[in-house]
């Protein structure tokens, strides 16, 4: 349990059954008056923002969130299954909760999965992943049209812009924070 005195940026609490992250906090106390605790919070499941003001004496349930390293196993429709390599425990995440991460999920990729109780609510990937190009147009030598990039599809189905010299079958490095091409894996 937390009280209003514990409120600060970064605190994770439960409201109406959902975990919330406190993203802004201020203590307000007009002269001789009662203290108010103003917060802005983000719902950690759906991302919605909430402004709430509390008074002294109020308390909150702490949100116990756990981050575990898990391996991506397979995808079935909108459902993505991950497994903890130590305990063999499996969790299923919906595509919506994955956000952009779905573009880089290849079988056996290891990622940090955020668990709220039994429920997987978020994922953080390595900053860089290697993915093979499955389709891209041939670069015509001597092309002077001035294009310095072309579209390419990688094995997860994600489409991004790559330099003209990248060929089908090549392994490239993608920055998962920006979704952009980073470099080519040599050899």
């Amino acid at each position, binding site marked *: 349990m937390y009280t209003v*005195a514990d409120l600060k940026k970064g605190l994770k609490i439960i409201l109406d059954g959902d975990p919330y992250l406190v993203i802004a906090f*201020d*203590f*307000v*106390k*007009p*002269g*001789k*008056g*009662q*203290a*108010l605790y103003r917060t802005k919070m983000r719902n950690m499941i759906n991302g919605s923002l909430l402004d709430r*003001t509390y008074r*002294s*004496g109020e308390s909150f349930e702490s949100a116990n969130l756990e981050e575990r390293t898990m391996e991506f196993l397979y995808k079935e429709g909108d459902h993505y299954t991950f497994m903890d390599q130590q305990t063999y425990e499996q969790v299923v995440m919906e595509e919506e909760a994955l956000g952009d991460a779905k573009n880089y999920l290849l079988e056996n990729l290891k990622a940090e999965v955020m668990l709220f109780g039994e429920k997987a609510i978020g994922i953080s990937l390595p900053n860089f992943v290697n993915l093979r190009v499955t389709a891209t147009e041939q670069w015509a030598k001597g092309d002077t049209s001035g294009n310095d990039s072309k579209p390419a599809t990688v094995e997860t189905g994600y489409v991004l812009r790559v330099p003209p010299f990248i060929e089908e079958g090549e392994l490239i490095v993608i920055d998962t924070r920006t979704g952009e091409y980073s470099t080519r894996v040599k050899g």
Partner: protein
Amino acid sequence: MKSDALWLRAQVIKAVRDFFWERGFLEVETPLLIPANAPEEHINPVFTTSSWQLQTSPEICMKRLLSAGHQSLFQISRCWRSGERGSRHLSEFTMLEWYRADCNYQNLMTDSEELLQYVVEICRPDSRCFGYKDITINPCAPWERITVQESFSRFGNRDVWDCLRKGLYEEILTSLVEPALAGFAAPVILYDYPAELAALARVKPENKNLAERFELYVGGLELANGFSELNDPLEQRRRFEEANAARSCAGHAVLPLPEPFLYTLGVMPDSAGIALGIDRLVMLTAGVDSIDEIVAFTPEEL
């Protein structure tokens, strides 16, 4: 850079001190560790390992000095209020208080104007202005004086008495009134507070529901609180007991009464006193938005 802020802090404190010395005020030091503060519903003292407390304000001792016959007094001292921490609050902070015998709150409003004009002249000789949240406030421009009732109807479109009954006073004040006060180019004085919000102030002779209390706002930031002092010991004791009853209801510790203060209050002349947050005055002079930027160390850094 913090060393600039610390230089400015020292300059502000020196300017404040010079201001009162030039006007013949006696600078006093009263004990910080005391057996009893004035019990207030929403102020929690910091207790030491003994039953004594750190002062939440020097007012008890300052007023005893008025009762002892001193006329004009000031003090710059540390005060402690448990659990208060935010961008404008530190649990340990520096307070300026000044008291004048044979004066009322109107005199203190004039003092405040002169003090702030003096501080910018010394510490901000180029701009002669304060700054807060990208707003420039000129203390040399005419100050507006607005009653609390008027401020609630004008900026909140609400009746202050109704807000008090519904427990919305603080919410409306901080979400509608104070932000509106940030729109003034000069400091603003809110005055004539509902009597229940002024446990140590004298009520207005012509209207017992209002107290002769005022608050000084600069750029919407509450800087000082002053009032004509209540000097009726029986009424003061009744209000302290009322505050303790409210504390008890809210689950806060009932606080001991400052008996020697009550004992001497009967001979205190009609006086007025005011408390001004030095840290906030430094914030305004430095033009910063957080109290963290103008202290040597925050509690989190210790």
